[in-house]
Each structure stands twice: as C-alpha cells, then as structure tokens.
C-alpha cells in the first residue's frame, strides 16, 4: 500500500504482455498503457467487440480501476459521510452506484460501493483519480473509527460482460450465479482460486460480472486465457477501451472528466436518483440543497445527429440560429444503435425531447435532436 505513487511512468496492468501477445492496439489512458481494441483476426475491432457484448459476451481487463476498502466499527458512518447514495440500505453482498462529492456538490469521482462484510465496504473508483480519491477518502474519514486501505494494486479485475457473461463465468466457478442479482456480489472459487469476489456489475449497460483475482502476472494470464477458452462456445471476444467507451455511452453511463467533474454538480449531471437528500448529512449536501432551490443553468441531454456528421468530445453545441449554447461531453457512432449519438450540456430551455440543435463540426453547424436517454436499455429478462 502506498499513499503517493510515482506517476510519470506509464503504468501497466498484469495483463499487459497478454494484450500485446494478442496483437491489441495499445493507447495511453489516464497514465495507463491499455488495449483500445484487438485485431480483427481474433474477432476484434471496436464495432465487433461492442456487438459481442450486446449480443453474446466480451471480456475486458479493467485492472486499472482502483479499489479502496473501508472496514471497522464506523465504516458505514464513514461511507455515508463521503458518498451521496445511501449505503445503509445495502444488504450484505449488495452494491450501489454512488459518488464522492466536494463541498459544492461537484464530483471527486463516481464509485461503486460494495458491502462485502458486516462492517466492510469496497469502493471501486476510476483509474485516473486513484490517488486523488484515496487521499480524499482518507482525509475525510479521519474522525471515524475505521481503517481505510488503498487496494488498487491488489487485484487484477476482469469484466465479463454481455447476456452470455453469466453462462461463461458459471463454467468456471462453484458459486450459483443464477442466485446473484444485478448489483449484488458473491464469493466463490474461480479457476481454482478460492474466495474470489464476483460482482454482477459493469460499465457496458449490459448484464455481466466483474471478478477480482490476485494481481500477479502468471495468475492473471492463466485466468484470462481460461475465461477466453470457456467462452469459446459463446463467441467470446476480448474487448478494449474503445468498445468500453461506446458501450457505456449508449447506456448513458457517465465518464469522469466528461459528463462529471469537479465543476459539474449532481443535478446538472442528472444523477438525482443516486443522491439521497433524505440522508441527514454527507459532503456536498448543503450546497446541493441550495443548488436545487436555485435551479440548474445547464443540464445533460442526449443528442442524435440528424444530418451527416459525428459529434465528438468538446465540440460546441449551437442553437438553431447558430449561437453557442453548450458543449458535447462524449460523442461517437453508436455501433449497436447504428446512429451517431452524443451527450451534451445545454441550458434547460434547450433540453426538451425533440428540440433541434446544431453541433459545430469543422466550422459547420450540423443538425441534431434532443432524444430520450439512455440511448440503449438492455432487454428485460423474462
């Protein structure tokens, strides 16, 4: 465990060599050398990987994600103080989407809070904000009787995502996965490794699991290959950050630094349902109460390009007359929906479904329309 890590070097997950062996195209992402996509020769390419997750199963190395554990007598009180969702509602083995907020109600990060034990909580945090998050959590939980540990380097985290993800993982574990509901966690033996945490969570707007295994290269590589082998009958495809981004965008899952940041508050981001104002106290609550009364000046909307063109992160949003009214936070072709979509901040008066706006693409205003979000919702299982 280290508090301050040397950052200038590009960091690698335990599966880095495996990705390179498989011919993945590598990119730097938040200081990490990560696969963006795998070669077409093994079923890869952003579009193919995206479709595999929507219709079958894909696996991702998400070991760059960070982990913070809070444990001890006042762990719950500490989690309640630093996060906006209500962790007191979590049963043993349950998880929830939440966020760490600054006093103005803006984002330190978004997190998944897992209740692993009676007084044990695991926060899964973003790669780019690991050190910031850990320092924030440590500083702000000092008054509580609990232990805060930075476990980011203690796991290799593999996401097995897609409607067939449960079938794939079930072949490798003794745990009964059919009993694990979405956003619940179980433990079991996976590929011969005992007591492995498996969460029915993900960042793809699809069903699936995330597993936390020992971080040494040999074990990580062995499990990765065993998962791929077990998934063969389901057409499993290894997936990179490219597909991870288009999948989460179709599902309107926020990305830190894009839809949420230290200058955007909870109401603007539209994450109201994860912010429990009935909780008497948490960092950011007072400012959010006032912000709610004041009303928002910008709000996150979903756009579909009407005319030919692809909105990209940072492009300007214009009104029909051509005046600048906002900006795109994430924009891309949507491989499953087969249209060009974007998330953007605009003033509330331009946020109504059906409103026509323009996105400035290489100096030209290209027509787009505000449409309902999430763009994609996974079909309910019968």
């Amino acid at each position: 465990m280290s508090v301050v890590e040397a950052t200038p070097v590009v960091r690698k997950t335990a599966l880095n060599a495996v990705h390179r062996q498989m011919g993945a195209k590598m990119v730097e992402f938040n200081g990490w050398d990560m696969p963006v996509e795998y070669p077409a020769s093994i079923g890869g390419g952003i579009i193919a990987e995206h479709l595999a997750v929507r219709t079958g199963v894909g696996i991702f190395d998400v070991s760059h994600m960070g982990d913070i554990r809070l444990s001890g007598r006042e762990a719950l009180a500490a989690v309640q103080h630093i996060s906006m969702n209500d962790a007191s509602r979590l049963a043993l083995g349950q998880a929830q989407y939440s966020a760490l907020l600054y006093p103005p109600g803006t984002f330190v990060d978004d997190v998944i809070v897992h209740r692993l034990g009676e007084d044990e909580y695991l926060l899964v945090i973003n790669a780019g904000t690991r050190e910031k998050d850990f320092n924030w959590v440590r500083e702000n939980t000092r008054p509580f009787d609990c232990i805060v540990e930075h476990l980011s380097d203690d796991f290799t985290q593999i996401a097995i995502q897609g409607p067939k993800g449960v079938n794939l993982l079930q072949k490798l574990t003794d745990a009964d996965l059919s009993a694990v509901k979405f956003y619940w966690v179980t433990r079991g033996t996976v590929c011969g490794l005992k007591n492995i945490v498996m969460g029915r969570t993900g960042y793809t707007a699809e069903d699936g699991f995330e597993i936390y295994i020992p971080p040494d290269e040999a074990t990580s590589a062995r499990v990765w290959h065993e998962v791929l082998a077990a998934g063969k009958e389901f057409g499993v495809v290894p997936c990179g950050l490219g597909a991870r981004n288009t999948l989460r965008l179709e599902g309107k899952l926020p990305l830190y630094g894009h839809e949420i940041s230290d200058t955007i508050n909870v109401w603007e981001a539209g994450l109201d349902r994860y912010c429990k104002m009935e909780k008497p106290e948490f960092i950011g609550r007072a400012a959010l109460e006032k912000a709610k009364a004041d009303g928002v000046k910008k709000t996150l909307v979903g756009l579909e390009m009407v005319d030919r063109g692809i909105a990209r992160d940072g492009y300007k949003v214009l009104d029909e007359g051509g005046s600048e009214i906002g900006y795109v936070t994430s924009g891309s072709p949507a491989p499953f929906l087969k249209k060009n979509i974007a998330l953007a901040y605009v003033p509330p008066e331009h946020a109504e479904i059906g409103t026509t706006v323009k996105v400035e693409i290489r100096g030209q205003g290209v027509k787009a329309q505000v449409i309902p979000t999430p763009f994609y919702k996974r079909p309910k299982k019968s």
Partner: protein
Amino acid sequence: MPYPTDRKYTKEHEWITADGTIGITDHAQESLGDIVFVELPKVGTEITVGKAFGTVESVKAVSDLFAPVSGTVTTVNEALATAPEQVNKDAHGAWIVKIRVKDAAEMNALLSAADYEKFASEEAGH
C-alpha cells in the same frame, strides 16, 4: 500487406497514382480502426500540397486527409458515403478522390512503396 509499386506515398499515409487517384494506405486504415465516415471535397475543389482536403473518421478518431500534391478534384468516390468500411477492406483499391495534377514534378518528393513501408513499420514500432 504489400504496398503496390504503381504509386507514390506520403508520410501522412496517403497514396497517389501517376494519373492522380488518391487514397489512404493500409497502415492508415489499420491504425484508424473501423472507418465510419469519409468527408469528401466537391468536384472542382482546388487542393494544395500538404493541406487538408477531407476527413476520415473511425469510431474512435478523426483524421485529416492531406493532399500529396496540388491539383483540382475531378471525381470523388461517392460509394464511400454509404460504405466507408470499403477503406478498411481494401485500402489500396478503395480510392477517395481523383485529381488533375497541377505539377507532376511534385510527385518526385513522395515516397516509393519500399520507403513508405519502412517508414510505416518504424512508426508502428513506437
């Protein structure tokens, strides 16, 4: 994939034949990934050596097309508007525009197939 020797190449990863047909290289399509959008100039547009004349977009990236030499656009490959993935499938066959070359001498400054292949492999090695 072998680089055809019937044409010249640029360090911006375009190819051009002696009659002024322009496309992007296999190395370029490979680094871009799934191509989903090609923005073409209008017929009659004057393009200038080294300047952007169009755009190719993959799912992830936006990339300018740079003119290998100066000239006037005579034909554009309209098929790419609806089937941009042709460039992924056959980069050296799926041409993008044809131009009337203004000064054939500008071609001399471009790379041969062998030199381009060396350049591209060095770049990929980074």
